[in-house]
């Protein structure tokens, strides 16, 4: 295990940013710390880097206890959300910084900087100032700068958070490819579940200062440990007694087998290749008093359903259509204990 975090607690006044967190991050992998804003994931990353100190608990990096080490002795590379470029230095000087601090011979520095700029596709910008680069280029420069010192772990704090959607997507793919080339143990913080699932080998879901679940993207998506993880990794809706993903609901225009829920389409929205429906369920119970809304879902928020456009077209769905909903076979479901909330 490359990074071993044991019983780390960090408080800001009465607020627990991290509450007794223990997690091990494997060597050579790309791990995402995923969670909502203010959930403690950045704090954990900063404690691993030594930029913040834990109130209690310990951090070990590559087998050495780093709890008391200052950041410059931990041999970690850190990439900040807002790049933290050295504004008064050229791109090449920025990348060379860590090497010059380590008193690397000049020729060696020059060679390494050349290699790294090649790696992040910034060779032609070596003599520019950071202010002449775009956001994506600055972040790539910051990454090269962090990699220059050959860190044992690379930590990225919401590295693409300040970039626009398109650049973000490009950089994400690029990061994945870079990692496959360089193989340095990498941990990155994100609040974007799509980013985490697309890039990471392993995801640690952190919420309210606690680790909710650790696992591969597939594990987390298919076997969420709890309501929160399920809700955070994708949209969740409620069909009768269970909560499940909107695309795991089968829609039929005729009453099929028992256990289907009849309803009416109250909203129909086409987004690209998919169609999003809102279905208002009808009260199916024969005897209105025995069926409470918690078992049938009647009276709760309408059910969200997502289906491919071709499928929606073949069913000839439109506003006001009467439909019967069933949970798909093998769908991931959790019992709905609380009134269904539309996932964010």
């Amino acid at each position, binding site marked *: 295990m490359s990074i071993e975090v044991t019983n780390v607690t960090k408080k800001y006044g009465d607020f627990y940013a991290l509450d007794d967190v223990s997690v091990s991050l494997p060597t050579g992998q790309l791990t995402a710390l995923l969670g909502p804003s203010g959930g403690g994931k950045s704090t954990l990353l900063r404690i691993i880097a030594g930029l913040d100190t834990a109130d209690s608990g310990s951090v070990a990096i590559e087998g050495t206890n780093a709890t008391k080490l200052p950041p410059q002795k931990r041999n970690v590379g850190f990439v900040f959300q807002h790049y933290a470029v050295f504004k*008064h230095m050229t791109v090449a000087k920025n990348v060379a*910084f860590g090497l010059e601090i380590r008193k690397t011979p000049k020729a060696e520095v020059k060679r390494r900087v050349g290699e790294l700029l090649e790696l992040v596709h910034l060779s032609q910008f070596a003599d520019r100032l950071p202010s002449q680069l775009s956001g994506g280029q600055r972040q790539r420069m910051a990454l090269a700068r962090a990699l220059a010192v050959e860190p044992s772990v690379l930590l990225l704090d919401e590295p693409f958070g300040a970039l626009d959607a398109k650049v973000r997507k490009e950089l994400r793919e690029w990061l994945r490819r870079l990692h496959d080339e360089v193989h340095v143990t990498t941990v990155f913080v994100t609040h974007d579940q799509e980013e985490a699932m697309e890039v990471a080998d392993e995801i640690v879901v952190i919420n309210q200062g606690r680790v909710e679940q650790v696992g591969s993207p597939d594990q987390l998506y298919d076997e969420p440990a709890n309501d929160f993880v399920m809700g955070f990794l994708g949209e969740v809706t409620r069909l009768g007694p269970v909560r499940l993903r909107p695309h795991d609901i089968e829609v039929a225009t005729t009453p099929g087998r028992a256990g289907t829920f009849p309803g009416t389409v109250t909203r129909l929205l086409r987004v690209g290749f998919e169609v999003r429906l809102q279905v208002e369920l009808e009260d199916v119970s024969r005897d209105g008093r025995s069926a409470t809304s918690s078992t049938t879902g009647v009276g709760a928020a309408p059910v969200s359903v997502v289906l491919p456009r071709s499928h929606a077209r073949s069913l000839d769905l439109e506003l006001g259509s009467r439909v019967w909903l069933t949970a798909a076979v093998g769908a991931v479901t959790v019992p709905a204990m609380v009134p269904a909330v539309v996932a964010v």
Partner: protein
Amino acid sequence: MVEVSTPVKWLLRVLAIGYVFFLVAWPVTTIVRQAFADGLGTFVEIFSDEQAVNALTLTVQVAVQAVLINLVFGVGISLLLVRYEFPGKRVLSALVDLPMAVSPVVVGLSLLLVYNGRDGWFGEHLEKWGVQIIFSGTGMIMATCFVALPLVIREVVPVLTEIGDDQEQAARSLGANARQTFWRITLPSIKWAVVYGVVLSLARSLGEFGAVKIVSGNVANQTQTATLLVEKQYQSFDQAGAYATSFVLAFVSVLCIVVVSILRPKEHH
């Protein structure tokens, strides 16, 4: 920008220019005119008069030392105020502004009370150890430091706040220790604020009068600075000399500010 009608625009311009003209430009030009009334003769006289040369030299010595001290402490206190949380931070911040609010004469008097050799709180003991503060260069430097204290800090603090500590943290994570981070990252980022603060302090220190007058004792050729000399010349009806000395003082200060605004990079506001 809000559109203003032409007459209003002109009225505002005339008001602003008139205000600055009558308050600053006109009186300063008078000094220049008076100083050059007899051609360069008065200047030759000043630079050959031992008392005047001594006064100017002393002024420069005191000002330079005070500025150096203020530079070190100013940058230090700025870092303390911006980068660290500690009890009493707001008190310190308020104290830093105090010299702006208090009259330099009061500053001089308070230093006199604490450090004089006869009944000062520290002065008596210091005098026993052979350290004289009042009526000596030390006291004059202290008074000048006090008066110019906020100038560096008030220039540097906003810049430090604006750049944040991201770059410093990045430097630390790349292996730089505190000293390397300061010299390679923090100082280059605040360079122009520091330079500007130093120039303002230098200009202020050269012209300091009230505080220095009280602590120096105003002994000709020993503790008489240029500003004190101007006063003495003026009072003893040597008006040409007073104007010429004033001109030298004003000229050096203006020169400092001009040089800096030329050196300062254009994109920096």
